[in-house]
């Protein structure tokens, strides 16, 4: 876990301490393992997937698992395992890209607001208030309504939707460390505001932001798959987990595995993100209750 250099020397560095703390959290370690596997196999989907995820075999739909198709085939005879792997790519891509956007812009806004204060602070935080005042998933739905469906727009919708918590956390933490000696010292030495915010503030408020990012990834997966389920997200034939589930819904009475398999995939990865997030919070941010 990337944790910044400490302000004060200690016998054991906080990074190591945090690592140890995290390692004691068995659920978090298990979650991390699941995530590593999920990300690795999704990234390697082009090499691992036995079939083209959109190659049809119309004559053999909803086949039971076999040696040829380990998880069977879907309603159009496509290999479910291949779709699950490729779908993991799209699902994780959406999630990570959306949270990355929110992390970067939210933190930047929060640090600027917290460090500079004044009118800028008020304006930024009032906008965040407004965004937070709209029920989250509803805001994403409204953004999709405006931009139209599709993978990129889903990333944008979830990205915008996730900015406010990062901005709030960044601002709060910045306010706390603004008065710290090392920040004051840097300022006295004539460092520019931008340098101070980037080099001194950001690294020292990273922990809570990382915790929030991990937990947000879980929310983002659920939002993305929810949008696809409503037909407002990634469109068929793309193998995104929510889209697979949405189509499989038409076969739930005859071939429930078409709903169960992508649903379990979403559940497992979301659970893993949540576990890792909880573990990180315990490890990095001992003030917050578990």
């Amino acid at each position: 876990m990337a944790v910044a250099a400490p302000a004060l020397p200690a016998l054991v560095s906080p990074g190591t301490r945090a690592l140890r703390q995290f390692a004691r959290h068995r659920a978090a370690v298990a979650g991390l393992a699941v995530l590593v596997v999920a990300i690795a196999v999704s990234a390697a989907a082009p090499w691992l997937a036995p079939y083209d995820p959109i190659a049809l075999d119309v004559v053999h739909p909803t086949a039971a698992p076999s040696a040829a198709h380990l998880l069977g085939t879907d309603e159009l005879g496509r290999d479910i395992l291949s779709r699950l792997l490729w779908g993991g790519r799209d699902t994780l891509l959406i999630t990570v890209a959306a949270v990355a956007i929110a992390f970067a812009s939210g933190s930047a806004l929060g640090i600027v607001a917290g460090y500079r204060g004044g009118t800028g602070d008020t304006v930024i935080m009032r906008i965040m208030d407004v965004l937070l005042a709209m029920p989250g998933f509803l805001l994403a739905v409204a953004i999709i309504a405006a931009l139209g469906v599709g993978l990129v727009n889903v990333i944008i919708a979830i990205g915008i939707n996730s900015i406010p918590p990062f901005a709030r956390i960044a601002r709060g933490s910045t306010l706390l460390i603004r008065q710290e000696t090392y920040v004051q010292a840097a300022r006295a030495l004539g460092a520019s505001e931008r340098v101070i915010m980037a080099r001194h503030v950001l690294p020292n408020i990273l922990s809570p932001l990382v915790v929030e990012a991990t937990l947000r990834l879980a929310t983002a997966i659920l939002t993305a798959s929810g949008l696809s389920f409503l037909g407002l997200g990634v469109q068929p034939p793309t193998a995104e987990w929510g889209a697979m589930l949405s189509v499989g819904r038409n076969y739930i009475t005859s071939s429930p595995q078409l709903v169960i398999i992508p649903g379990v995939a979403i559940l497992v990865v979301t659970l893993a993100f949540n576990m890792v997030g909880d573990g990180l919070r315990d490890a990095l941010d001992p003030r917050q209750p578990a």
Partner: protein
Amino acid sequence: MKRIRRRELLKQAAVRTGAAALAAGAVAAPSLLFSSTARAASSSPVGRDATFVVVDGTEPNSLDPAVGTGPFQAIVNAMFEGLVQWNDKGQIQPALATSWTSSGGGRIWTFTLRSGVRFHDGTPFGADAVKATIGHILDRNTPATRRGNYLLIKDVLTPDEHTVRFVTDPPNPDFPLLMADGSAKIVSPAALKTYGQDFGRHPVGTGPFVFEEWVPNDHVSASLNATYWGPSPRVRRFLYRPIPESAARVVVLKTGEADVVQDLPPTDMDALRRESGLVVYATPAQTIAELEPADTKPPLKDVRVRRALNMAIDKNAIIQGIMKGFAKPLSSPGIPGLWGSFDFTPVAYDPNQARQLLAAAGYGGGMDLTINITAGRWAGDLQVVQAVQGYWANLGVRTTVHQMDFATLLAGSSSDPDARPGAMTSLLKSSPYIDYHLYRMYDSAATNVPGTQQRTGYANPEVDRLLDEERSMFDQAKRLPILKHAQALVWQDQPLIYLFQLVNLWGARAGAKGFVVLPSGDFVPGVLRRT
């Protein structure tokens, strides 16, 4: 003066549709339908007291019979009646008219109307109502999806309150059949005047049920018409629910939340047959599924492109794999089973030849197409369209599937083919008789009429000439060769992307009785009962 007696006409109709249906094995359905089933009725968890619930997949675009034609006919037929109606034997029988005759060389059709009938709003039913209904269909401001078929009506005369006289050009032997169509149901002239273009939201007819409310995407309900002229249904309310997800339709059939469910998914039929407490049917349908392009501009203007696109789809694989055999391959531009529909050499699946054709047409590098679809019109539709998308990808054709609601879909497919963005529309066509079908689908006088559903703009002067000739002939035997010739020409042109002929898949709660599902897919309430 030539007179056709009702009995003769009935016989004709019976020969045309009935015989075909019999041949296809339709007899089983109606006889089964009215026999009491030995299976135990499932205990319904929902207290629906005396409400009869019918479920299909499509939210109505309108409840105006002239405008709202689609797989929600159940509710329209519960509230409206035509002059005549089809029965389950493929014959037409009296409804709001008690008898009818033709005169003037077949140019004049006189209907004697039933007396003592009132619309739900109290307006007495009479000749002026019939005249107003036809005027409404022909009004350019009404988006009447089947207006093309009514263009032969030149005048509607009302010699007295109970007589209505249609003057047609050309003379047409099928005219009474047209009056049996779902779009020809008689509407209240007073309500038409009151609501204008909003009539489709405030339907007023003469049927056994009176419109109650329409909650969009949830239900349309109608309550018992206490002053109905015919035998009264034995339920208090009639409710139509659109449920676009086919599996959800299976669920409400199983749980007893619905009395009749239409458009069941083929994948569930075997399991549903074994289920107790419900009965499922697979009956022949006069319905074909196809993709309708704009034939007036490139790339679909080129017959080679249309042929290539048809050829590139393995329709038999789709029928076996997705439709589980509950569909029939189509080798006719007509509707197999209808009198006068002919089969031709099938367009066999041949991706290589399709590729060559496309290259010859100048699209060797592929092209972009869009298919507009309202998912849930029939079970499996979205999957079939995705399969088509996959087959076309083999030709280098990049297809975008665009899902939309039914009203938006129709707005697109009924707009000027020259002006609309080049999208095909996934539609169903169900026609009661062959001339009706061929004329509206392929006669240039009907393929580009504003507001009509199938606005392909297809035009072939020779087909026009042949259709004009056959549709005014009263000697049925002489019509056949001309019908065959016209269809052969159309089949060469391949103006549509033909998918297959559907089979009606529907189910009923064991206790639901007193209705018929016709080969047209129409739901006809008789003396509805639920036990």
